[in-house]
């Protein structure tokens, strides 16, 4: 019905407070950030100015190194941009499996903008939400409650994770086969809590990849490049459909992801993870409750 115009001009970065007047929206191309800082009004506004200023060049910095960032993280090339460095650092610990720095791009952008947002400012809390990958700052005694999405298709909330300032957690990221980027696995959603958003992003990507039934005919896959010609995943097969799974199949796939998540936690890469597939879930918190992460889940959980 509607004719597309032949060309669309790059409108450049956009910055605006959204309708509640409290949150800042920054957008450029595929980057879409919702930012909220809490504190005195002038501190908040100053923080927003800092974030806005930093955001100006974020996309072009990434685009400058995009070809390199789409290569496997094991390649011996050093990124020059601050965000690119964050991406590579977050992906590197997973280099035993195939991963590119792009696995951490959303989290790394959130971390970088958060750093610019809070530097020199007095804020009780601050969040940079990059399409569900969130970097946050917590002042002493503050807590952050994140909703965990169990089923992204219907947007059902499966539980909540509460993070306190004493936790070494400042990033949360979600990955799965319904998101914007393609997944090698079949998880509906994997949410990871880690020291920063880039680490959480890379880990969530890898854990979601590990939630899989590699030989099952019920999984439809297509080469990533057939769907998105520029994909960093090249001709690797990404999940395009999952037919109804039996309980044992769901458990097997979730267990594979859970084992991968445990290894990541044991290596100190992540603090906690929440996995969901076909309304079944796994929670990997700290059994000794030292992280004091409180998961309240509304669905049946194991693990």
């Amino acid at each position: 019905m509607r004719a597309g115009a032949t060309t669309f001009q790059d409108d450049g970065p956009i910055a605006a407070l959204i309708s509640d007047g409290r949150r800042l929206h920054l957008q450029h191309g595929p980057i879409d950030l919702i930012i909220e800082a809490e504190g005195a009004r002038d501190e908040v506004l100053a923080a927003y100015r800092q974030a806005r200023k930093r955001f100006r060049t974020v996309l072009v910095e990434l685009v400058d190194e995009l070809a390199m960032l789409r290569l496997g993280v094991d390649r011996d090339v050093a990124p020059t941009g601050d965000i690119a460095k964050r991406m590579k650092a977050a992906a590197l610990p997973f280099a035993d499996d195939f991963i590119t720095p792009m696995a951490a791009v959303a989290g790394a952008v959130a971390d970088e903008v958060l750093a610019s947002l809070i530097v020199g400012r007095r804020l009780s809390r601050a969040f940079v939400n990059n399409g569900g990958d969130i970097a946050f700052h917590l002042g002493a005694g503050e807590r952050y409650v994140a909703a965990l999405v169990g089923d992204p298709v219907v947007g059902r909330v499966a539980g909540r994770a509460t993070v306190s300032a004493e936790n070494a957690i400042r990033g949360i990221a979600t990955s799965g086969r319904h998101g914007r980027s393609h997944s090698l696995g079949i998880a509906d959603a994997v949410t990871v809590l880690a020291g920063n958003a880039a680490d959480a992003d890379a880990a969530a990507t890898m854990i979601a990849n590990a939630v899989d039934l590699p030989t099952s005919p019920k999984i439809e896959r297509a080469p990533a490049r057939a769907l998105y010609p520029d994909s960093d995943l090249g001709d690797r097969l990404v999940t395009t459909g999952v037919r109804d799974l039996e309980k044992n199949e769901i458990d097997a796939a979730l267990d594979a992801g859970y084992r991968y998540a445990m290894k990541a936690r044991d290596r100190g890469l992540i603090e906690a993870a929440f996995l969901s597939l076909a309304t079944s879930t796994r929670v990997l918190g700290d059994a000794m409750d030292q992280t004091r992460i409180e998961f309240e889940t509304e669905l049946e959980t194991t693990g």
Partner: protein
Amino acid sequence: MTEQVSDNATKRKPAVEKIRCDACPVMCYIADGRSGACDRYANQGGELVRLDPLTILENRIEGGGKVVPFLDGEDDADPWQGDVLADGETFITAVGAGTTYPDYKPAPFIVSSEIDGVDMITVVTEGIFSYCGVKVKIDTDRHLGPERNLVRVDGEPIGHVTTGEYGSQMLSIGGVHHLTGGGKKEGRVTCASMLALCNREAVELTIDDGCSVIVQAGQPPIINGVLENRMRVGCGSATIGMFASQWRGLVDEVVVVDDHITGVVSEHQAGKVIGWPETGIRINGRKSTPGRYFQVAEPGTGWGGTDLQDPLKILEPFNAKIARPGQSMLMVSTTGEQSAYYVLDDDLQPVQRDLPETLVGSVERITENCEPAMCSVLFMGGAGGSLRSGVTENPVRLTRSVKNMLTVITVGGAPCYVWPGGGITVMADVTRMPENAFGYVPTPALVAPIEFTMRRSDYQALGGHMDHVMPLGDALKGGLGPQNDHILGGRTKAMHRPENPWPSDRRHYGWNREDTAG
């Protein structure tokens, strides 16, 4: 540009190509049927389309901040204050809403909201306009072509030159005769050209026995490859007329250099009436009336639209019987973009000096009065029976409701002029609408957004589809009425343009006047 535009409308490319999106620096390659990294732009059959079709306007708190370009406000002297969107002040435009044509079903969105205690309804639809056109105003004094001559794109007639206006040339583009009354190619090219103009793209037009002109809404015209910067405040003679009294006593002679008519204040009627003395100046040009000269030089991009880089070339030696050493002279172009100040030496030869402070103001005033040359594009269309029946079961009542100022029409949220007389014929400035507000159907016809806003009671009275009304909040959350079987790819928010009145503002409505009068 033109070629590209018409190509898209006329040819269905084989649906295999991946395309390069240029909407942001990422420059994604996008396979057919897929979207780019942002999920906002997609490849549909080799054509790049936006996926966020439904545009929602958000109003700003008055005084809460004008639209601030991103790059402004980074210095400490003028810090960015935050652009605040007012809570709840939301208006769904018809951009991307889709249409139920030709099913005669209720319009895709009929939403209700309460504004200042009044229950308001907005009917949101995209109209298919087979009767529509584009009026183009081009700010230039240049002769683009004779009135009534055809305007062409790709050799196809798409409109004509119509009556010129002050400082501007006017074109009438499109209309049912070019769309469906001529050859098939004529219709397609006309539709593609109108679509491009309305979506604020550049289109190259050629005029029979005239110029080639590149027109883009809100941009200066490019005529025969030359960018037109400013509208002249007037010709050289008119400029003399406007400023003679401001120059009196400050300078002995003023020459306004212009490709059309160069003016000389000491000889000009405007100088004579205030007793301006003779200076013995002699101009090398064809004298029209006293102080007015044609053809002082060839047309060009130099002084006042001439080819002159040195304005002294239009002077012959001063008349030694009248001129005296020390006599001063200002030469200035019609746009004030060039100016020079001279004093005659003992041999009566002009020698350039710095422009005295006392004259700077008058030169600046000329420039100030030369507005930037622009192309204005107004969409004009008539709401036909099927469009109106999407609003009401009794279309003529909608016409009456509009005429009685009970219903306000907006085009993509932009205000429009409603012509008097029968039917609903509207005219709206495309630069006041969200981007890419227009589409087309292969008929060929233009698809334009149109919204009708009125009180709930007035909607009921005109036979509105009351059982299809949904609250605005539901529509914003993604709700669709039972009549809407279109799949919307998403939604986009657009800043309300501060120059546009808010569609449901009570001041538009006849009943408000009654209320306040009573």
